[in-house]
């Protein structure tokens, strides 16, 4: 394809493929542990972290990792204390993180960060150093999932049973949230803070319409994600549309089509008991 003769498109394709491998793997746990709304909270907290980095003059990627990671742990801690519900904790936390971000950006007179790019994503503005940080974060996430895969399976399927086996389920839950935070920051420059939560949900949600074994679901999530990112990227180039938004809409269309084509299949939830 001649669009990939351009260096910026080659870079875009490369990070797109990286994200297409990492996001679906995390998406599998987000969907099955029902962490979609926490994912939204974490993405908005990343905005506060980005603004903090810009305010302090340090790389916003790393402040975003710290900020969204801390927000994820705080949401989980508060909701596990059961004084407030999880959705209340998320609602309070992500609005506060966004507010902090807006105030910090307002305080800094000449900010150099591409705010619009972070909010809505700009895969075409990816730099060499972005590629390195995305690759490092992606490798950390994939390695961590490989090491703790069976424990994460149990966390999603039957957390209480994991406790009876003596496994540290609460620590594993927090660790999974940190990996979600890392994935969000990894993808936020490409897809945008506002839209990145879609990549935490769509790949596995689409794959689970078709498959019922976790190995097949993860493999299909990656395939759906690769198709979505490459097709979305090509469409954004030829139609001159925002890249992050086009990728997310492509993924949404694949999800809706999957649902329509596979309408007759009973959702797994409804097969319970007899």
């Amino acid at each position, binding site marked *: 394809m001649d669009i990939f003769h351009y260096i910026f498109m080659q870079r875009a394709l490369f990070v797109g493929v990286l994200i297409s491998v990492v996001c679906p793997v995390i998406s599998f746990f987000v969907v099955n542990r029902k962490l979609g709304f926490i994912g939204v909270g974490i993405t908005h907290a990343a905005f506060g972290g980005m603004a903090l980095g810009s305010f302090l003059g340090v790389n916003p990627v790393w402040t975003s990792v710290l900020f969204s990671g801390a927000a994820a742990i705080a949401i989980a801690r508060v909701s596990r204390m059961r004084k407030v519900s999880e959705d209340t904790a998320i609602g309070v936390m992500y609005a506060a993180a966004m507010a902090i971000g807006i105030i910090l950006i307002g305080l800094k007179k000449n900010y150099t960060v591409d705010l619009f790019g972070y909010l809505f994503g700009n895969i075409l503005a990816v730099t060499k150093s972005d590629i390195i940080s995305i690759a490092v974060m992606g490798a950390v996430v994939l390695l961590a999932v490989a090491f*703790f895969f069976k424990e994460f399976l149990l966390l999603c399927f039957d957390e*209480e*049973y994991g406790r009876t086996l003596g496994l540290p389920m609460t620590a594993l839950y927090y660790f999974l949230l940190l990996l979600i935070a890392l994935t969000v920051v990894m993808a936020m420059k490409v897809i945008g803070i506002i839209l990145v939560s879609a990549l935490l949900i769509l790949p596995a949600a689409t794959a689970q319409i078709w498959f019922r074994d976790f190995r*097949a679901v993860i493999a299909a999530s990656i395939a759906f994600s690769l198709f979505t990112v490459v097709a979305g990227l090509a469409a954004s180039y030829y139609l001159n549309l925002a890249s992050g938004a086009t990728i997310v809409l492509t993924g949404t269309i694949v999800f809706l089509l999957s649902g329509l084509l596979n309408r007759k299949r009973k959702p797994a939830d409804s*097969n319970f008991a007899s």
Partner: protein
Amino acid sequence: MDGPIVTLENVSFGYGASPALEGVNIHIERGQVFGIVGPNGGGKTTLLKLVADLIKPSSGKITFNLKSGDKNPRIGYMPQYASVNWSFPVKVSDVILMGLYGELGMFHRPGRRERELAHESAQRIGIDELINRHISELSGGQQQRVFIARALAAKPEILLLDEPAANMDAAAQDMLYNQLEKLRDELGLTVLLVTHDMGVVPKICNQVACVNRIVEVHDKPENLTCPITKDYLGTQKEILLHGDFPHRMVRRDEGGPERTGHRHEH
């Protein structure tokens, strides 16, 4: 080995300020089915969780007399249905393998040995033909047997079952209780069984604990009258039958007597 396999000495536990169990003294003998009955909210599941080491007693002591010497994973636990994510994309074989995760430890993946153990456990419970099915495709009775196979995979000495017959029809319940008796008699397994089914207590339990914040243990489940669960026992729909008669009945004034059918499911 001599002596009780589990001993609870003056054990108490509370959720916040309200006590769930007070001053519990129990000696559970090896190779027995130990029934736990009582009203909802009376502390049955709390008692099971204490033995499973899921919660720690606020006072008192729980001691184990296990052949392995180590408490985990020599206790197989089957929690109530509520904690399971039924839409999770997992096959029966993978669910049974989960019973070996504690023994495997962190960072280790299940290998051939674990798959063989899981298959052996499935065969023992009679669900080996189901191992490639998705967990949500099974009937309630089959799902419960999968979780028993999971609890048995690590070859425990004690099996803790929290209302295993919930969501089962009468035929599946009979099959389950026969299997529990077989596990006790053939493997010498000690089974702690939380149940609301008063028909099964005299049939398979060697001892029974009536639990309603305090606990009273009865050595003769067939003559179960107990002051602490009197109201509860009095309102049970099913009549307690004595002896070896294997079927459960309902009261005449509620449409009976009616023998439950012996339709084998699936």
